[in-house]
């Protein structure tokens, strides 16, 4: 196989294995101790970004999973690695709750 054809085949393979849609960033706002929207739908590979508008520090924490620190007036993010429904909360204010429904690619 000529180098050129080999490259063509590789490009084709790459194109086929690429996900149909590009990974997205989904924003969740925190205002007055509320995650909004409280529930978001996403796909594996997407990024969730939390924008903390409060003067208080918060976290987005999954029990036994990730723990994102969200300092006052700052944001933080996480890349979704696997499909499933994730319930998260704020460690400092456990009355703050959110949910991410992650679909496969």
């Amino acid at each position, binding site marked *: 196989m000529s180098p050129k054809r080999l490259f063509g085949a590789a490009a084709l393979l790459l194109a086929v294995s690429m996900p149909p849609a590009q990974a997205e960033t989904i924003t969740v706002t925190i205002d*007055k*101790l509320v995650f909004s929207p409280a529930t978001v739908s996403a796909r594996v590979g997407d990024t969730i970004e939390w924008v903390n508008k409060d003067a*208080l*520090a918060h976290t987005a924490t999954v029990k036994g999973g990730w723990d994102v620190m969200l300092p006052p007036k700052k944001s933080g993010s996480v890349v979704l690695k696997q499909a499933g429904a994730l319930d998260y909360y704020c460690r*400092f*204010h*456990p*009355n703050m709750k959110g949910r991410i429904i992650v679909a496969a690619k």
Partner: protein
Amino acid sequence: MLIRPLAATAALCLFAAPATFAQAAEKPTDPQIAHIAYTAGEIDIEAAKLALKKTQNKDVRDFADDMVRDHEAVNKQALDLVKKLKVKPEDNATSKSLVASAKEERAKLAKLKGAAFDKAYIDNEVAYHKQVNGALETVLIPSASNAELKSLLETGLKVFQGHEQHAEHVAAALK
């Protein structure tokens, strides 16, 4: 152990029963409400600072750190707001009795050590936040006439409800 239920009962009368409140004075005014809310925050900061000096437990230390950070942030917002509204917080009977019972509680906590201190501090935090939340819900928020003050108290209530749950988690972990 006798002092504790007594103090708790006194505080409960003060807070949980709006009737007592109404008898003591009519509805608290905005300057009084601002003073009560600020004082309640200061009391919790002082308790947390005592805990930071005494505790060896990581969960308790983290919790106390959170209390200092959150209550300082909320109180800063409160100060900014009263300045903006040109309201001068006004000392009152409720603030005074809050300070008095907090002083008693701190004296009691200061005598304890180790696990006994941790348990007493966290149990008191659960009870204290419950009382303050009750007062916010039944007296302070409904009595506030300025919309911005009311809104800050409502946010404060959510913060303190969060603390109450957080304290309950820590209390459960200590057992």
